[in-house]
């Protein structure tokens, strides 16, 4: 503020001097002031508004989103599908399992239910046990990656919660799955 006033005063005096007033400014003083000002202005000094007054914005990042809620992230994928008569987690689902394991080991307070399902061919109780086998396969994969037992419960819905009822092979494949459900 003071500097601005000084500059303005200087300009007015200079103007007045130019108008033939008897007030004579000491030229050397002016120059000294100017040079002082120039010196103090630092780099690129070319009048007012130099970069010493500007404010550089620093971005400390966005407000932290829970990656679980990112609809485009891998954690949005919660289902592992199984081949007919199979209870092995296929390689194509390893990234999904690893991603959930990372999340759960980082967020030890989070818990999941792993719900196993089957298609509807055969005994309901035997299918309940087969669905459990699928849920258990996913649970073991997560445990191996460090997720604690307290964070997981493997349960089965057997054939009771068919996602697809059309009865063709595509429907059967859709129903042979384990779902990860965050509690």
């Amino acid at each position, binding site marked *: 503020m003071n500097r601005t006033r000084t500059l303005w005063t200087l300009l007015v005096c200079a103007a007045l001097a130019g108008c033939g007033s008897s007030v004579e400014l000491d030229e050397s003083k002016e120059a000294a002031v100017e040079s002082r000002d120039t010196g103090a202005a630092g780099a690129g000094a070319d009048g007012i508004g130099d970069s010493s007054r500007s404010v550089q914005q620093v971005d400390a990042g966005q407000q932290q989103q829970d990656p679980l809620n990112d609809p485009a992230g891998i954690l949005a994928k919660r289902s592992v599908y199984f081949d007919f008569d199979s209870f092995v987690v296929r390689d194509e689902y390893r990234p999904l399992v690893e991603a959930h394991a990372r999340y759960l080991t980082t967020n030890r307070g989070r818990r999941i239910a792993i719900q196993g399902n089957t298609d509807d061919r055969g005994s309901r109780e035997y299918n309940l046990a087969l669905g459990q086998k699928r849920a258990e396969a996913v649970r073991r994969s997560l445990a191996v990656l460090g997720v604690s037992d307290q964070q997981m419960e493997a349960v089965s*819905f057997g054939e009771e919660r068919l996602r697809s009822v059309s009865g063709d092979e595509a429907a059967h494949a859709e129903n042979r799955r384990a779902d990860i459900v965050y509690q």
Partner: protein
Amino acid sequence: MADAPFPTTRAMTDRRIMNRTRVLFRCAAALVLAGAVATIHAQEMRLDVSGVGASQYPIAIGNFAGDGQLPEDIDAVIRNDLAASGMFRIIETNATISDSETPDYAALRSQGADSVVGGSFTRLADGRYDVRYRLSDSVRQRGLGGESIVAGANDLRYAGHRAADFVFEKLTGQKGIFSTRIAFITKQGGRYRLKIADWDGRNEQTSLTSPEPIISPSWSPDGNRLAYVSFESKKPVVYVHTLSSGQRKAVANFKGSNSAPAWSRDGKTLAVALTRDGLSQIYLIPSDGGGEPKRLVSSSGIDTEPYFSPDGKSIYFTSDRGGSPQVYRVATSGGAVSRVSFEGSYNVSPRVSPDGRKLAYVTRREGGFYIMIKDLASGAVTQLSDRGQEESPSFAPNGLWVMYATRANGRDMLMAASVDGRVKQRMSSEAGDIREPTWGPFGQ
């Protein structure tokens, strides 16, 4: 020979009828689950019968004598029950035949009726009915006995079923199942219901309604409780539910899945399938819950669907320990396991007949699922069903029929077949899917 006077069983029968009314009323009043409302469904199941037994008793059932019209036709109930068994040929008659008169034996013989039932009803001052029936042999021209029952208007069908049981037992020497009840699950409009009904599907009452699945209902030996699996807490949990009060308890709610309850003969123990140790294995728990489950057998595969033999000494179960699901047997005290099913690569859902001699189970053959009956002594296997979409076999308490679930025209429905396969009854409902039948015991 003079007609034998019929025995007065009135006092005992009165109590039974009254108790049953009380139980039925409380059943209807039992409500469970947040927001659930008890309902008595007016929608009734449809019963279709096909086939006849190897031999049939020709019998005439007269119209019952009495003033006015009964709210329920008792003689029609008797005719329907006996006809549905396939073991009786109903000789049509329009005659009113009272229990207190000697029937016209000559006329009946000329119509082809070897036996005849006559009966009567009298309306009592308190609004109930004094119902009487008598069975007579028109060939030997003598009475075979009868009974009298006092029944309220809501129990007239029950009186008819009791009469049918009486006739069935007198002529065949085997106990009738017409007074028994069944339990089953319906799915309709996104809601699941556990229902109790008379053996013929009538008088449905709902004991549990839920937005989540209910499976594997199982009657206690005394007929007062049902065990079942409910998914209401988003995982399978075993409940024991007292029908008359609606009180129920989660008796197996361990980590993982809890399912497949089966009652011991004395009603004190349940065998269940638990996955608390990883895969499904069979354990014994007290039927009122509590205590630490006792593992019955071990395998590295899946063990499930336990079922006690009638003498309580063995438990049959499904296991894929050998690579494919088959039926096995083990002593209730544990120990050596022996394999029981050998044909094919998929045999599940074992149920033993009440006399311990036969095993009903489900086999998969060429992609279809069929009910099979195995004679445990000879090993001979016969096929009982033919649609190829069958599951959940359940023996009648007299061992003569097997009820099971099947699917037709996109709908789940129930079938009952005589063990020799000759007679089939189909029970379906327009209202929705019916599945998981279980036949209740005698003496309810």
